């Protein structure tokens, strides 16, 4: 692998860019691996990378049914934040934010992480109190948070609709270290870095069958032949239930729902933060501006269970209405693209990272809305779980048994209705 550095950029500028290698190899599958990760998204690739880097387990395969960057890794709104409150989640997401802060150097790949601040608008005194409590709790584990008065907010973002009679803006709660990263760079960066440590990335390799023997998984049937792994990890958000049932493990506390996102035509710099409109009951809408100038936004789920990567029109309308309610200056912009990704929506809105009833199988699932930002720490803790065969203290409650123990990691306090955990 040719490293990206100033010298190589200079050298290849002189030799017609002929000195670069391909980003990752395209190997033939081997028969046996020490660990096989099913799912070549951000979580699967990050897991493989940290298995190799942190735990020296390098005989690893990542199986991807499509191509790298073609699933939810390429279908998100690229927001990175750590404003979580529940024990376990708090430490986990703060860890992920810290990994993002050094990820470009770690991967030798510019993931374009921009800590431009995550600004949540407040519309009622009740929401203000609730968010003040949340951000104070976050500070206990080292996350940052600030409360902005209306005056300060108007100074920072003057072009919001401050005359909104229905949802008046009282101020904002802000995480300055949060921001955006480039989703394609993150997934390509992890793929390239994992590959350089010896991980085999097998694309167009869909798992079609699972052979169990004596309480463990003996082999996986795939579209590229049988593959054996001493340890198997599932990291296939959206389709976890399908794979789980293929392993004859029954039901999961997960429903698959689809979430849409939207991109407008590019405009000059308009918004220099991630802006959230409407929490506390008003609406649910988030918007930021990409480096190319497009406005990238999204909101609620489509409200019914689905495995289709297609969005419905009432949700398009609702997102458009939210955009107009908060930034009427967007009214003349045309949408260039919109798409939907399939989410694992869990029963309490938090993820699962745990051992399973099968000895050599490990589960990474249930990321709800939060999969993109979570991916570095997800890989970090999942690799730790697979290598050491015990959950790290931070994720000790992120298992499938938590519901029967009465442990609900429910950030919104909504209850067991997956579509509500946005």
């Amino acid at each position: 692998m040719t490293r990206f550095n100033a010298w190589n950029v200079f050298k290849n500028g002189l030799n017609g860019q002929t000195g670069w290698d391909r980003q990752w190899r395209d190997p033939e599958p081997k028969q046996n691996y020490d660990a096989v990760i099913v799912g070549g998204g951000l979580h699967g690739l990050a897991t493989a990378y940290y298995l190799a880097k942190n735990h020296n387990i390098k005989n690893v395969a990542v199986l991807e049914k499509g191509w790298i960057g073609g699933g939810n890794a390429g279908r998100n709104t690229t927001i990175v934040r750590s404003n979580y409150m529940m024990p376990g989640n708090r430490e986990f997401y703060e860890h992920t934010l810290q990994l993002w802060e050094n990820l470009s150097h770690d991967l030798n790949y510019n993931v374009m992480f921009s800590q431009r601040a995550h600004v949540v608008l407040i519309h009622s005194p009740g929401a203000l109190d609730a968010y003040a409590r949340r951000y104070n709790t976050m500070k206990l584990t080292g996350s940052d948070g600030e409360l902005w008065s209306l005056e300060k907010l108007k100074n920072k973002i003057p072009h919001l609709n401050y005359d909104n009679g229905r949802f008046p803006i009282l101020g904002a709660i802000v995480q300055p270290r949060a921001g955006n990263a480039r989703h394609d760079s993150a997934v390509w960066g992890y793929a390239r870095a994992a590959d350089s440590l010896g991980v085999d990335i097998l694309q167009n390799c869909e798992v079609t069958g699972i052979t169990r023997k004596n309480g463990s998984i003996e082999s996986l049937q795939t579209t590229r032949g049988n593959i054996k792994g001493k340890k198997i990890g599932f990291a296939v958000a959206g389709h976890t239930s399908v794979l789980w049932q293929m392993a004859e493990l029954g039901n999961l506390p997960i429903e698959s729902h689809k979430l849409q996102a939207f991109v407008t035509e590019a405009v000059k710099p308009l918004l220099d933060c991630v802006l959230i409109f409407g929490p506390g009951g008003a609406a649910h809408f988030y918007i930021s501006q990409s480096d190319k100038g497009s406005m990238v936004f999204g909101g609620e789920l489509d409200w019914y269970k689905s495995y289709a990567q297609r969005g419905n029109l009432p949700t398009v309308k609702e997102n458009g209405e939210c955009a107009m309610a908060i930034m009427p200056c967007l009214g003349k912009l045309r949408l260039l693209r919109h798409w939907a990704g399939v989410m694992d929506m869990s029963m309490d809105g938090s993820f699962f990272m745990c051992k399973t009833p099968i000895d050599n199988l490990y589960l990474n699932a249930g990321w709800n809305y939060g999969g993109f930002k979570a991916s570095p720490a997800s890989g970090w803790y999942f690799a730790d779980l697979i290598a050491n065969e015990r959950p790290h203290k931070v994720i000790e409650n992120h298992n499938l048994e938590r519901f029967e123990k009465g442990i609900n990691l429910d950030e919104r306090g909504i209850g067991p209705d997956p579509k509500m955990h946005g």
Partner: protein
Amino acid sequence: MILIKCPYCGERDHSEFSYGGDASIVYPSLDAPQEEWVKAIFFRENIKGIQKETWQHINGCRMWLEVERSTITHEITSVKPCHKNLQKVIDN
């Protein structure tokens, strides 16, 4: 947009309806062991294919409906009232 043929109101946009969820869940008796309640409340088959689910026509007749719908194509193959005797009343 999904079109749902409400037995009382006729064919309407799905935005008139509120989504309930999995209609195949059978809640255990009140004195059933805790494991059965955990399974009923927290665990889902999450079918990729045709699933039985509930919708309520909140911006119409407010009837609860049992709908068979594909979670891959969104095609609806059956709509009937959740209440077993209601179809007879509508037909009369």
